[in-house]
């Protein structure tokens, strides 16, 4: 089975300065000073693909996990770990344009890379743009079904057994390939970390870089980016000790008729 994982390298949003959130706009929002990280949902998709690869190989089946990303940065530090933990090949697509609000253009670029694969694994959304549409648009372009909010995938008779979160509970479905799997709150959210020996074994491996021009029909145009102001006023409960504060809290709850 040939699996491709679509992933994005994002910025660490927890270390963005307050001022930058406050002054954010579509024209000026630069948070490139923060650390880069793997988009959390894509990280889960990568780990799930590697686990599937392990399981398929253990049962004597062939399995390959490749990966593709779009971006212009230097992501070698991520690639080193990904190669070392078992990703076979990585494609990095470079484009001149900002695709943050252009999910259809992203889907177009990914579709070209994903076409030859049996299964596409990806995160359900990117923590920055957060459109949540790319998996559907990609599946649409590939003419394949899209399973969203995937928790886990394993091999099964007749296809892959996917467990997905649904409004009413969990969907357990056996799916014939090809298909697109978009991971949400996965059972395996963290990507394994390579050992030094594993890293040394793939020392010379490099990602393949491609130049592409994006094309897409978005349907919606972003017109404003801003931080919403908060209106809540917090009252602080004073006290010398945890006991005093606990009593104060219970008194307040009683006053508010909450206790």
């Amino acid at each position, binding site marked *: 089975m040939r699996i491709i994982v679509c992933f994005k390298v994002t910025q660490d949003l927890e270390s963005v300065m307050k001022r930058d959130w406050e002054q954010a706009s579509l024209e000026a929002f630069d948070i490139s000073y923060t650390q880069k990280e793997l988009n959390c949902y894509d990280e889960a998709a990568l780990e799930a693909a590697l686990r599937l690869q392990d399981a398929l190989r253990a049962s004597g089946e062939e399995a390959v996990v490749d990966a593709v990303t779009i971006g212009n940065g230097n992501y070698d530090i991520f690639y080193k770990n990904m190669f070392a933990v078992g990703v076979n090949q990585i494609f990095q697509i470079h484009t001149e344009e900002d695709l943050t609000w252009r999910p259809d253009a992203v889907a177009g670029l990914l579709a070209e890379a994903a076409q030859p694969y049996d299964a596409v694994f990806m995160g359900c959304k990117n923590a920055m743009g957060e459109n949540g549409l790319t998996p559907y648009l990609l599946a649409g372009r590939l003419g394949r079904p899209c399973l969203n909010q995937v928790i886990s995938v394993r091999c099964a008779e007749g296809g892959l057994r996917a467990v997905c979160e649904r409004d009413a509970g969990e969907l357990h479905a056996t799916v014939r390939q090809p298909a697109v799997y978009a991971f949400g*709150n996965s059972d395996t959210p963290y990507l394994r970390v390579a050992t030094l020996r594993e890293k040394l074994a793939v020392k010379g491996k490099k990602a393949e870089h491609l130049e592409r021009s994006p094309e897409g029909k978005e349907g919606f145009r972003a017109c404003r980016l801003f931080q919403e102001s908060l209106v809540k006023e917090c009252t602080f409960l004073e006290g010398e000790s945890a006991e005093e504060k606990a009593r104060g809290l219970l008194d307040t709850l009683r006053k508010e008729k909450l206790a």
Partner: protein
Amino acid sequence: MKIVAVIRESSAQVQNQIYALAESIRPLGGSAQLIYLRKCEDAGELPDFRGYEKVLAVRPKGTLPEDPEVWADAAEMFVKPDEEVLAVLPATMEGSEAAALLAGRLGCGCLLNVKTLRQSEEGPVLSRPAYSNNLTVSFVPESLPAVCSVTVQPAAEVPEGEAPAVEEVQLAEAYEEPSWLEDAEIIPRAEEEGITAAKRVVVAGRGVGSREKIPQMQELAEALDARLAATRPVVYDGWVDKSCMVGASSAIIAPELCVVMGASGAAAFAAGVEKSKYLVAVNNDPSAAVFRIADLGIVEDCNALAEALLRELGGEKVG
């Protein structure tokens, strides 16, 4: 521009979805139609449809599976590619999926998890969260039709006015299982699991320190007659079950009382609890963002406070 809400008869929350969508659509002005897809041929009483101008209740043949495709089927009967219409679905998991499928079939634009809709000179403006809920981004449709899914706020207001006329329609096509599906079943969530329905919630954040501290938080939750919930890292680290997670990417709750213990208040988490009627935040860092969404703030070690609360209550249960 015509506005069409599309709702599928599903869980007990459907009445709230009907009200919430009416409330979200109202700022667009004008009136909205509702396409209400019934669960099965012989579904019982209809809910209260106040807030809409007209309702089309779509009845399937037999019982419908939990497949968003059928939701899109029903919408497609009434929303046509050459119409100036904005179709609005609830941003539940299936609702957003149905919105994306419908947009794909109509070949039009789609926006998911919209928080607010308003009218402007340029036409409708739809805003949704971005950058993990730290920012809001607004969009205008480049053309119509367009489709969106709108976040359903818990406990929406009941609209005033008369109940609209309801027209019964038959779903055009019978359901056919997709060829890519070998087999499928939905394992329903146990009712008592749902933290969205809880009136009181205690949330454990990573500040509780370790898995060993969770039983004390559970004990506190029980003493306050509350349900225990958790932030994402606490769930991802396996300290509590996934069904307890709150935040933008899990459950959005609006309990009467929410006590947040040792959570930083990151925007993606805050989106899940900020609608609480009374929010108490406990954090040992006075500058923690969680205090910005709290009614009452306590700068304290959350485990010491939990211990003191339990001692103070001395086995007594409140609530």
